[in-house]
């Protein structure tokens, strides 16, 4: 195989398909962190919602019940995290990491308890969310570029993919053009100023965490009932951390975070394509070295192109009325 065989189309479609897990989680993290709460617990919430949505979708044979149940659990976890971080004024990193570790264990134990398949849920079969075929796809299929664009790049994905991509402008709008967003950003930058302006910092942060819970659940649901069709232990495989990375990479801004997610999706897809291919200059690289492409690219981009990333100033500090 040669370099020309790189399937750009396939890479793009794959990017679109891979990104939603990160986009949902990234946007979730964005809400939490712009309000001043570090959300390193994305991973745990993704995993929990992945399990619950798969289990419920299987039990009810209805994917939407699965999505709803996953949302419920993710929101519960987010509430716990909020309680620890906001009410108890505990360490936010610890809370997040605790949730990640606890969920990694608990999802397995519960899955094993109910399904006896080694921490796996049964195959969802018809209870998955299937891809949407845009009207007229069949008709344009034959047209060279347009057909592919319409039927495969734009069309042919799950509803959740459209939700993920639609979320980005929505989040941008909410963050920068609504009262809620203004208050949210104020709480993350200078909660004392928000408080003095009559904004309840606690309520604002709780709300942000709830939204984070909801968004994060889609990430888990997407993994389990769209991409895989079942739940498997630890199937989040670091997606939460990657989403967090995309967010820091994107300087805590929705559009840039989105680009960060796409970047991971894109280089993940490129990496698949160049495995076992003779590359110009370097020749054929061992598969395991190719695995590091997305990560190396991130470091290079971060070091070379990006300005210093600036976190919300109050990120990670509990709001205490004191000097």
């Amino acid at each position: 195989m040669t370099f020309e065989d790189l399937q750009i189309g396939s890479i793009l479609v794959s990017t679109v398909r891979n990104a939603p897990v990160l986009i949902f989680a990234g946007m979730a993290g964005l809400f939490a962190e712009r309000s001043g709460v570090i959300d390193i617990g994305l991973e745990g919430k993704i995993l929990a919602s992945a399990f619950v949505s798969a289990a419920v979708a299987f039990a009810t044979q209805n994917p939407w019940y699965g999505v709803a149940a996953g949302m419920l659990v993710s929101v519960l976890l987010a509430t716990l995290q909020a309680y620890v971080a906001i009410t108890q004024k505990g360490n936010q990193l610890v809370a997040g990491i605790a949730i990640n570790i606890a969920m990694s264990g608990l999802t397995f134990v519960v899955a094993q308890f109910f399904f006896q398949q080694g921490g796996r849920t049964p195959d969802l079969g018809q209870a998955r969310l299937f891809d949407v075929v845009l009207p007229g796809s069949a008709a344009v299929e034959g047209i060279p570029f347009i057909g592919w664009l319409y039927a495969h790049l734009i069309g042919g994905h799950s509803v959740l993919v459209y939700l993920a991509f639609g979320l980005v402008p929505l989040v941008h709008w909410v963050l920068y053009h609504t009262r809620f967003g203004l208050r949210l950003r104020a709480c993350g930058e200078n909660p004392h100023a928000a408080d003095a302006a009559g904004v309840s910092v606690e309520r604002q942060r709780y709300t942000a965490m709830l939204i984070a819970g909801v968004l994060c659940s889609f990430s888990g649901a997407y993994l389990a009932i769209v991409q895989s069709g079942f739940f498997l232990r630890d199937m989040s495989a670091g997606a939460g951390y990657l989403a967090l990375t995309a967010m820091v990479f994107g300087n805590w801004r929705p559009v840039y975070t989105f680009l960060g997610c796409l970047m991971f999706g894109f280089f993940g897809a490129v990496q698949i394509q160049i495995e076992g291919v003779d590359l110009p200059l370097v020749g054929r690289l061992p598969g395991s070295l190719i695995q590091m492409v997305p990560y190396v690219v991130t470091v290079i981009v971060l070091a070379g192109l990006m300005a210093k990333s600036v976190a919300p100033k109050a990120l990670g500090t509990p709001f205490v009325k004191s000097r």
Partner: protein
Amino acid sequence: ADPKLGIVYDAGGKFDKSFNQSAFEGASRFKKETNINFIEVQASSDTQAEQVLRGLARKNLDMIASIGFAQQAAVQKVAKEFPKVRFVLIDGVAQGANINSITFKEEEGSYLAGVAAAMASKSKKLGFIGGVDIPLIRTFACGYAQGAKAVNPKVEVSSNMVGTTSDSWNNPAKGGELARSQFDRGVDVVFAVAGGSGLGTLQTAKEKGKLAIGVDSNQNGLYPGTILTSMVKHVDVAVYDAFMQMKNGTWKAGVTAKGLKEGGVDWALDENNRKLITPEIEKRVMGARKDIIDGKVKVIDIRSGVACPA
């Protein structure tokens, strides 16, 4: 009296959809037939393997089955300390008068899978998806490629690995994504040797209407109609046999390499894939099988240090 038996899984755990699970199934069959119980433990690290082997040996177990090459060093060490306890090491080789090391000629079973795949493929493009790039997985890949090229030297095999960390065995999304990417490149039969991640591959193949090949246990029944066959590795039989021999007093130490001839590996043909295996395919596969058993065809094992010819 009944023998006291134990089984130690490696980090993958007894539900890894791979050799641990297969071992568990073999032990369970033994238990069902003989009503003799066994103790089972999972050793999550090499250090724990030694600890648990020693712990079980102290309980005066008669036989301990250690599943997975990761336990090789631990078995070697503990077996020396407890000469009365018998050890069965799966997938690795340890020396000792009380050790039976059982390895499998994965390349032979994979060869058959490759033959079947090359016959069934229309595009003459085959895919291979491994969990992590380690010698064992490469052995599968190489056997598969040899089989495919034996059918038609023009067949192309593209190969991808899920990742490099232990997550890689539990990442069905990636397993599916790799399959999609291979299908986009024209592949129409894919062989998944990636534990839980491989389930994502099988699933995607079904969704895309392509063919997939399962591994380790007979996975034909997972998605009947799209699973061409499974490359079965009879860890279950090995464990079952060892326990049985223990019970009957016929067990012997030594090193056993189980290939097609010894019934260690095979391909799976049952009602689930009957329709996919045309008579020509069956004939060709069975022919290759016979040639290998008869020694007419030698499948290269890359672990012996020879580069993969295919």
